[in-house]
């Protein structure tokens, strides 16, 4: 599946919810389902500092695919992180670098990306794309 197909799937999933509770319960579930990040990757180097919650991001390649694993100490952010991983992990570095992430906006979660200081999500997206660019130039 392409990055946009995964985004469209998520948008469709969220279109089923008609109240905030079921939407956030789903995000919390996604957070709980996210495979735990190995403690050895929870390093200062991998941390994306938000003001309130911490996000760890580990990037690596498998073949020509860029993969991500991530974690957070707050469950809602972890759910959002899990969506970003779902969308961006397992694609070519150049696809990640140039991805247009529209799903957060479409499912009404854009405020979580806009709050620049209250969580590390906006920085996380930036960092994921930076990894894309970095691995793209390594491959070239």
């Amino acid at each position: 599946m392409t990055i946009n197909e995964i985004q469209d799937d998520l948008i469709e999933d969220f279109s089923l919810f008609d109240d905030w509770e079921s939407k956030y319960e789903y995000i919390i579930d996604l957070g709980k389902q996210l495979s735990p990040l190995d403690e050895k990757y929870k390093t200062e180097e991998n941390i994306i500092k938000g003001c309130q919650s911490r996000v760890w991001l580990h990037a690596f390649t498998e073949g020509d695919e860029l993969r991500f694993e991530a974690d957070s100490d707050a469950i809602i952010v972890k759910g959002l992180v899990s969506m970003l991983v779902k969308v961006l992990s397992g694609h070519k570095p150049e696809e990640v670098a140039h991805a247009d992430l529209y799903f957060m906006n479409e499912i009404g979660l854009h405020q979580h990306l806009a709050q620049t200081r209250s969580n590390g999500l906006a920085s996380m997206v930036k960092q994921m794309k930076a990894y894309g660019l970095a691995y793209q130039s390594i491959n070239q």
Partner: protein
Amino acid sequence: MLVEQNIASIDIAKIRNDFPILNQQINGKQLVYLDNAATTQKPRQVIDALSGYYEHTNANIHRGIHHLAEKATSEFEATRRHIQGLLKARLPEEILFTYGTTDSINLVAQTYGRKFLKEGDEILISTMEHHSNIVPWQMLCEEKGCVLRVIPINERGEIVMEEFEKMLSERTKFVSVVHVSNALGTINPVAEIIKKSHAVGAKVLIDGAQATSHLHLDVQALDCDFYAFSLHKLFGPTGMGILYGKENILNAMPPYRGGGEMIKEGTFEKTTYNELPYKFEAGTPNIADVVAAKSAVDYVESLGIDAIADYEKQLLDYATEALQSLDGLRIVGTANEKVSVISFVMEGIHHQDIGVLLDQQGIAIRTGHHCTQPLMQRLGLAGTSRASFSVYNTIEEIDRLVQGLHKVRKMVG
């Protein structure tokens, strides 16, 4: 619908009516605003004064001889006398207009501190200080080689007075402590701190950012050398603060910023400085907000600070009991003397999740470290959730908070 409440001579329905912002829906629910320690909402009287200034009065102050300039100057200076009254200061010249508490503290550190403190001198602050009352002193210590020492607190979040007394010596030259903790709500025994500091010859600054909307103030009775606060936490406009200083000390201090208004005579060779308070008010000040601030003080005085304090105490007691009834909730900061601020943690739930899920329910609280990271480290916490109550909050809003937290627990726990 509001239940009729007339506790302690507070007419809550009438007061809520004065605050237009409260009457709105957030995420489809009636707003419950419990972030008053960050900033209070503004009554209609302040909003009208602010727009009225721009509609009828706007002019630059102190220099113009036309009608509007004189009117603006007179309204600007009227606020100074009002603040003098609020603080019970001896002279209006002891009231300096700044941009806020942070600016006021920086002014003292950069003028009094740079002129009078030297290498090896000790500056005392407490563990519960806001970053605004830590960083300016760290900067000064770095420049002058002074030593910053931190007064410990106990488990309830109170300054340990015996330890404070042990720290005082002839090396102590400055003591800067918060009147009321923004993160814990603790009211510190500042009168005693001031007295004991003066006994060793130290000057004292009190950070009153969180105190002015809750407590009766009298800087002469307190005998503090400086008192700093912001108007936006006292129902007034943002971007406007006060530094009170004793006249003789302010006179001995060099100016802070150079520019217009603060000079008496200027040539390219030498400038002589204006007298108090203008020496410290370089440039065109925040005239509109200063003028509107008078209405904020009027508003507080029309309700009466004692009536406000009585009412808020009832909110605090009710909320403390109601929150404690929640499973796994622990209140952080249980001082004997507190204002209506409650910090808490919930077992197994990150404070950010609490904030996000309450916001979905129309309830505004603050979560995080509250700009008191060293305090959070001392308490062994990454952060807390903080509900802070003002005179326009109600018992029903506290019930909404408690119900909201039950829902958070159900969803996350």
